C-alpha cells in the first residue's frame, strides 16, 4: 500500500490516467488539450463545455481578476 502512487485529483493513479488517455479518440484529445490550455491560463474562473449529439461543439469560459 505504501508504494502505491498518490492518486490524481480524479482519484486515479498516474498509470490508470495514462491508460485512459491512450484510449481516447482524436476529437476527445483535442477537447482535453483545449481545456488544459484554458486551465493553465486561468487563475479563477469557469469553463463550460457545450455538448450536442455526444460531441463537444463549444468551449466557453469566464475569467475573474481581483483588482484590489
Amino acid at each position, binding site marked *: 500500500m505504501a508504494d502505491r502512487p498518490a492518486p490524481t485529483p480524479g482519484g486515479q493513479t498516474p498509470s490508470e490516467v495514462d491508460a485512459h488517455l491512450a484510449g481516447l479518440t*482524436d*476529437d476527445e484529445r*483535442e*477537447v482535453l488539450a*483545449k481545456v488544459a490550455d*484554458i486551465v493553465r491560463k486561468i487563475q479563477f474562473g*469557469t469553463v*463550460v463545455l457545450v455538448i450536442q449529439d455526444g*460531441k*463537444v*461543439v*463549444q*468551449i*466557453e*469560459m*469566464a*475569467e*475573474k*481578476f*481581483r*483588482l*484590489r
Partner: protein
Amino acid sequence: MSGVMQLEPGTAAVAPAKFSVRDLVKTRVRGAGSGDGESFVAVDHVTFDVRRGEFLCVLGPSGCGKTSILHILAGLDEPTSGEALLDGRPITGPGPDRAVLFQEPALFPWLSVAGNVELALRLIGVPEAERRDRAMHWLENVHLGKFADAQPHELSAGMRQRAALARALAAEPDVLLGDEPFGALDAQARELLQDEVQRVWAEREGHATFVFVTHNVREAALLADRVLVMSAAPGRLLEEVRISSPRPRALDDVLVARVVSEIHEQLMREVDKGVAHEMDL
C-alpha cells in the same frame, strides 16, 4: 481538427485602447446648490482601458460613481484628477463619435419618431436626401418602422427607448455609451432592448465600442465581454470578469447564470459594507 469552437477572449482583447482611464478621481459636493455642501469622493483612483470593438459594462451599487465615469467618457464632465483619454488624447467635450443613451430617452416631443432620428443625421451632416432612408433603416432595425410618423408620446416607454437607440445608432458612432439605458423599462421591454443591443453590436463586428453602466448584474453578464465590478462609495474597482461566450446570449445560459451568481454574491457583500458604513456615520 474537429469542429470545436473555442471562444478566446474576442479580438477586442488585443485591439488598441479606445478609452484609457488613468488614476481617475472625481469628487462631488453633497447637496450641491445650497452652497454649504460637504465634498465627498465619488470615484476613487480608478484605472482601466476599453479596447476598440469591446462591449464593457461597469457594474456597481447606487452611488458607486459609475455614472460619473460614464459622463467623463462622454465628455459631459471632467475628472477632478487623473485622466480619461479617447484614442490616446484627453477628452475635452462631447462629440458625434460618442452617442449616449440615457435612462430617460431624450426625444424631442414636437418631432415625429423619424424626425428625431433625421435630426441626429442632419447634425452630423448627412445630406437631406439620404436622411429619411437611413432613419427608416434604423427604425426598422429596432422594429419601429411602422411608428416612424408617430409622436414620441404615442409610444410606450420601451418603444421610446428603442427610438432613442435607433437615433443613437443611425449616426454609426464609434462609441455607444449607456447610462442605465434600460433601467426604467419593464422586464419584457428590457429583454427586447438587450437583444437589439447585442445584435447591433455584433453586426458592427469589432468596429463599435459599447460601454454601459448598470446596477443590473444580469444585464452586465448578458451583454458584456468584460464586466468591471465597483465597490460602494467611494467607488473603486473590485474585480474584472471576462466572459467568452457567443452572442446572442440568454440569461439561462450556463455560463451567464454562473457569472451572474458570482458577481451578485460579491456585490451583496459590498452593499452590506455600504449599509454598515452609513450606519457608522
